[in-house]
């Protein structure tokens, strides 16, 4: 009985231990993911926090761009290597790692496609590599072929602009659909829409290239 309680205590302590890390500077406890030690204020390694946690946001597709910017800039202001220019080499290295992780999180969450990818991964959905599951969606495949053809045949920048505008509208609609799918918890639909968004954004890039070609 006594031994069992002990064992339970120990397991619980281990679980809690994963939420608490040791400050490299004062060797006291720091909450996992906290950028600074609450006791001695030393900058900590970035740890394993996911992109949402790093920016203090709840996991979800709905991210307010202005709010995201605010959080990012506020954190970067504290963590950027320039803030540590006169500090010890170890602190400089840690701030570099923190700023790197923060940039990664920001760049991911800022972009709807990468945000959707990231959410799917966090939900355990395997996102299929770029381009290769168009085949599983005959409708999308058909649409892709038609649009590519139209783009190749476009003979003036005005025609290309029209395609760009139409594609941008589709991107916006697709992002709207993703928001609905994620909030309804429909991961299968979210996966399909993510693939579609990937293809649409590629098409937007291609229209830009086509326009440059036409300009000579």
């Amino acid at each position: 009985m006594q031994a069992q309680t002990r064992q339970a205590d120990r397991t619980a302590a281990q679980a809690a231990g994963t939420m608490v890390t040791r400050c490299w500077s004062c060797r006291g406890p720091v909450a996992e993911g906290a950028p600074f030690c609450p006791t001695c204020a030393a900058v900590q390694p970035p740890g394993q926090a996911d992109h949402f946690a790093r920016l203090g946001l709840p996991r979800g597709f709905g991210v307010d761009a202005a709010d995201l910017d605010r959080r990012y800039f506020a954190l970067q202001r504290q963590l950027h290597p320039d803030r540590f220019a006169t500090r010890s080499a170890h602190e400089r290295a840690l701030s570099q790692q923190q700023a790197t992780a923060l940039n990664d999180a920001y760049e991911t969450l800022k972009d709807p496609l990468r945000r959707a990818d990231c959410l799917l991964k966090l939900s355990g959905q395997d996102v299929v590599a770029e381009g290769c599951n168009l085949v599983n969606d005959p409708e999308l495949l058909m649409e892709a072929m038609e649009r590519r053809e139209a783009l190749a045949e476009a003979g003036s920048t005005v025609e290309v602009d029209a395609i760009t505008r139409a594609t941008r509208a589709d991107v916006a609609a697709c992002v709207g659909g993703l928001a609905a799918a994620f909030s309804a918890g429909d991961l299968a639909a979210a996966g399909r829409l993510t693939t579609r968004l990937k293809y649409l954004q590629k098409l937007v890039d291609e229209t830009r290239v086509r326009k440059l070609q036409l300009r000579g």
Partner: protein
Amino acid sequence: MPELLQILEPGESQKQEREDGRPLAVGIDLGTTNSVVAVSSGGAPRVLRGDDGNGLVPSVVAYAPDGSALVGELARQLLLERPEAVVSSVKRLMGRGVADVKSLEGTLPFEVEEDSATGGMVRLRVAGRTLSPVEISADILRSMKDRAEQQLGRAVDKAVVTVPAYFDDAARTATKDAARLAGLEVLRLVNEPTAAALAYGLDQQAEGLYAIYDLGGGTFDISLLRMEKGVFQVRATGGDSALGGDDFDHAVAQHFLGQRAAARGRTALSVAEVKAALMMARVAKECLSSQADGDWMLEVGGTMTRVDLDRATFERLIDPYVARTIAICQGVLDDAGVLPEDVKGVVLVGGSTRVPLVRRRVQEFFGRPPLANINPDEVVAVGASLQAEALTAGSDTLLLDVTPLSLGLETMGGLVERIIERNTPIPVAKAQEFTTFQDGQSAMAIHVLQGEREMADQCRSLARFELHGIPPMTAGAARIRVTFAVDADGLLTVGARETTTGVEQQVAVKPSYGLDEDEMSRMLYESMRHAKEDMALRVLTEARVEATRNCNAVAGALQADGELLDAAERAAIEQAVAAVQAAVAGSDRDAIAAAVEELERVTRPFAERRMDRGIRAALRGVSVESLDRQGDKPASEE
């Protein structure tokens, strides 16, 4: 004379504290044609000028037979007299390989050495010696450091050095190396356009997009910066490395020579006569910035001809060049997907922006008058000095840079696989997996590239290295993870690792165009008369910083969790802290290390108790930040 009263202005006390013998940090604009050094104190920047009041130091170095270097105006005057011993425009060669320089052949005013053992950066034959661009730039930087130290009457050992926004990894590394050789620690490499924006205090302004229009003697650059809440981002850059005020001079000189030919018939011109015509053209250009017309005497073949030029004709002559800069601006805006009216301000940089037509065209294009009240030749150094102060004294402004060019690897068939796209905020780290393409393949060549083109041979080669010891597997089974990391200065490190076995290779992408460490330390040794003392001092300084950090950390822990200790334990820790502080006051590095080690030993049980309490608090769902310190009793040791 007796002093009346000393009044201390707000901010003054801080200034005085900074002046009590601590080395200062300066801002240096290391330019292709001229260099400028400035210092800022209490937010007030000033350019450090020579006795003649000129802030510009020509980036020209003359070498005496004994190897000593002469930098600046005197060196420039020797340029015609002793061309074999004088180097100018060395910035164009920073981080450049022999192959890159081939394309510049004929345009370079000095002789380039075919090879350097490693196939690395070019070397120049100067006054019978072989020098690298890094060494020559170091001589320029050293003279800027000397100028600053003389004027300020104190040591200067740190600097913010500016580089063009498009400078690639090799050129940035070379610039940093040059500063190190000159005895300057680079606090940060700052992009020139960003520095110009800082000089105008745009970091204090409303959020928005700003354009930096930089027209120098031989180069044109346009950069689009986004400022948001005191954070700068370089959004897009463009330019032409062979477009500038020199083109204006050429056009005007041609016009003058045409006038002469019309009056006296065509004759062959000597090199000296062409140079004289160019010189006169420059004078005319400067005149016409403030006057409507003028005439000058041009001497060719021993006869003088009167030539004239009015503002309208001058503007017609240079208009194609100015139009080209505007077309490049348009391209950069397109690239960033913005319209001219989205730009909230335009900053002028470079002497050629004094030409009225340039200002007018810029104003027409952006639909607003440009910012031009800071000397366009000095504005970059002014901004750099502000940033140097911000980094040493602390400030609210933060410069976030992006990668100027994409970084990638060569893959099968000579294609480029991009790992980090251009305009990615730095610092950044990205990894990608590659695999073997032959059964039993045990090594893999890693070729690191920079640029926007699709084929490897069209991109800039930064480094090559090999990953050996891959265990024999079937083709496609090995997992080789290649990691690219770019730091806040834009310098790249590449690592490769076979993930199933952990075989690893790591290179700082440096040897191929910068100097390798051996070469660097040899040069450091040669260049510094007191290399050993300097080195020892640096190590001691680091040890002091580290020990002081340790003491502060322990003090913080004692304040937060002191009740976890009994009186005797606390006394022991305090004694150990005092010992560290005493060692820091001395200058024996080993004594500091020993004291720090003892402090760590004494505080170890304390740290364990603090951890235990933190974990128990987490168990109860209390966040570590808000530990209920009262409710906890010292944990007993097992």
